[in-house]
């Protein structure tokens, strides 16, 4: 345990109303490992994944990635945004409330039909007009606006502090138990969407197709094809994702997840519904992923896969952690055998 763990799940509890899906579960994933979480159905494995990826917020306990909880930091940008919104809202509220009065005083009063309009004079009228409306209205509306705007911006920030996109941006990517590809998009596009966080071109660059767009376009496509080759899908790059056979869809999900260049990859039952040959290929793929330096956190029922690829295994049962260790240790752990492994192995 010399190296600092990449991911620490520290006494995480997940409650939904009365139901407790995880009860202070803890484990640590070392960088470079393939770490498997196993357990019978309903043991709370997927819930754990959701807690890690920010789909749910832990009821208690925390998830640390590279030593700290993944969260939007309380940075200057936040203050800037909140302040900015507040001011903008304040001004727009003030204008909204005084719209008619201002218009009359500034525009109507200074514009004689058919004659040139004196901007300087007009702008000069804004101040008096406002004061004429009355401080209460003007500043009242302004402060209400500021409150709503600033408050709103802050609340929004709070709410989105640890949403999946933030977690993903930090370097954790995942696949889904029930495959969730973008069915109408092509295989290639799915991977490109995965790259979203890594791409930089702005809205207007894309709108106007500035040089930056073309540059990025070229190498993002190249990298996407590379990934597809890596998972063996390059031939199907331009099919609609929903037309892929099941096994390939799982591979595409993996490619899509890898596209974000994660430090940690969460695979949720990647072997589910695969035939033996596909399974072997999958194990092979997982190893190759680990060899590229990506740490893998794996949920799997399929014991051959689990025992075959993982360096370390954590066993959940009824939401509690009942054991953790190397495959050998788990294989010989009475609790696990009794809880879970026994029948699997014999069967």
């Amino acid at each position, binding site marked *: 345990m010399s190296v600092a763990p990449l991911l620490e799940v520290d006494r995480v509890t997940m409650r939904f109303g009365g139901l407790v899906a995880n009860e202070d579960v803890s484990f640590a994933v070392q960088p470079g490992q393939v770490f498997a979480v196993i357990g019978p159905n309903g043991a709370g494995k997927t819930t754990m994944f959701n807690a890690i990826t920010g789909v749910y917020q832990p009821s208690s306990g925390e998830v640390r990635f590279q030593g700290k909880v993944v969260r939007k930091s309380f940075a200057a940008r936040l203050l800037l945004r909140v302040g900015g919104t507040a001011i903008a809202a304040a001004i727009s509220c003030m204008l909204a409330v005084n719209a008619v009065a201002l218009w009359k005083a500034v525009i109507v009063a200074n514009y004689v039909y058919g004659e040139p309009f004196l901007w300087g004079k007009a702008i000069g009228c804004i101040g008096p007009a406002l004061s004429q409306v009355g401080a209460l209205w003007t500043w009242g509306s302004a402060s209400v606006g500021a409150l709503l705007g600033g408050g709103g911006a802050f609340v929004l920030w709070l709410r989105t502090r640890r949403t999946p996109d933030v977690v993903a941006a930090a370097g954790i990517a995942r696949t889904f138990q029930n495959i969730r590809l973008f069915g109408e998009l092509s295989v290639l*596009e799915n991977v490109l969407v995965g790259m979203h966080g890594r791409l930089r071109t702005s809205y207007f660059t894309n709108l106007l197709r500035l040089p930056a*767009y073309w540059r990025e376009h070229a190498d993002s496509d190249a990298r996407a094809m590379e990934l597809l080759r890596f998972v063996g899908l390059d031939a199907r790059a331009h099919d609609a994702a929903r037309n892929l056979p099941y096994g390939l869809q799982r591979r595409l999900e993996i490619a899509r997840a890898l596209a974000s260049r994660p430090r940690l990859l969460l695979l949720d039952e990647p072997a589910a519904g695969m035939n033996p040959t596909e399974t072997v290929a999958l194990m092979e793929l997982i190893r190759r992923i680990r060899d590229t330096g990506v740490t893998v956190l794996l949920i799997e029922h399929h014991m051959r896969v689990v025992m075959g690829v993982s360096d370390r295994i954590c066993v959940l049962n009824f939401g509690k952690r009942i054991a953790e260790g190397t495959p050998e240790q788990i294989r010989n752990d009475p609790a696990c055998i009794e809880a879970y492994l026994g029948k699997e192995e014999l069967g």
Partner: protein
Amino acid sequence: MLLLAAAVVLGIIDGPLKLGLVDPMRGVLIFALLGLGLNIVTGFTGLLHLGMAAFMAIGAYAFAISTCDIYPFQLGFWPALGVTAVAGALAGFLLGAPTLGLRGDYLAIVTLGFGEIAQDVLKNLDAITKGTQGINPLPPPSLPLFGEFGSSPAPWYWLFLAITVLAVFACRNLERSRTGRAWLAVREDELAASCMGIAPIPVKMYAFATGAALAAIAGGMWASLYASTGEPGNYDFQISILALCIVIVGGMGSINGVLVGALAMIGVANIALPKLASWLQQKGVVNASNVLGSPNNWKYLVFGLVLVVMMRVRPDGLLPARLERRKAGGSA
């Protein structure tokens, strides 16, 4: 491309052949633009939007106020159109900021409500908007490139065609870029998208603002064409519904689809039906003494039937999007 060619050909042959189609086609182009705007929100991003008319209205009034000579601004056509687009985008942001967290039809009703509110505001702030009188006249654009903007419809047609082509390219550029892929991803599966590092709300915000800007431009063109904003009542719920029909009939998320949809909808409502009505009158099939007699009384029925039948024959629209499959569309 093919559509563009067709449009150009029509523009050329219309005059000599006296088809008289270029005139109504200008309306089609305006609504095509409105449709393109809605297509970004509903077609690409999958947000049901029932308030497009509001943004069209905002556009029309922004354009009118910045060009009409009863106001001091009196900008030229392009600058005014720029102002219009910005105004639309801003409005989009204002509406979107607090509400884009909402799901499917809840967002839909919010947009619907915004449409109603916008109308009330335009009607009631008559000190600024001239209320029910509408703002007029707007000076005809002076763009020698397109010719003399007088009573002849041709220059308008070419101008609007140009704007529409630009808009189409803009939409296509966005669709096939990081921005557009994010929109499509959010439409397909919002949660999966966010797990890929896409923050849904800002992404939707861009879609909303873009759509609003396009709708606003459509409004600006409209006002400029009729040299008047008309009355606020001209931008009511019916227009939002029409826009929706254009997008769905054309084919959700398909740019060409929208163009065809606009042609179909406005074609039926503003070209085919009037011609049919006047033709029947020429044939003397009119008996005003009872309500069934006048062809004009059948328009609702025909329009409705057209919608129902089209949806029955082509549930995915006339030109479904590139990879559009069944079940693709869907708001909630």
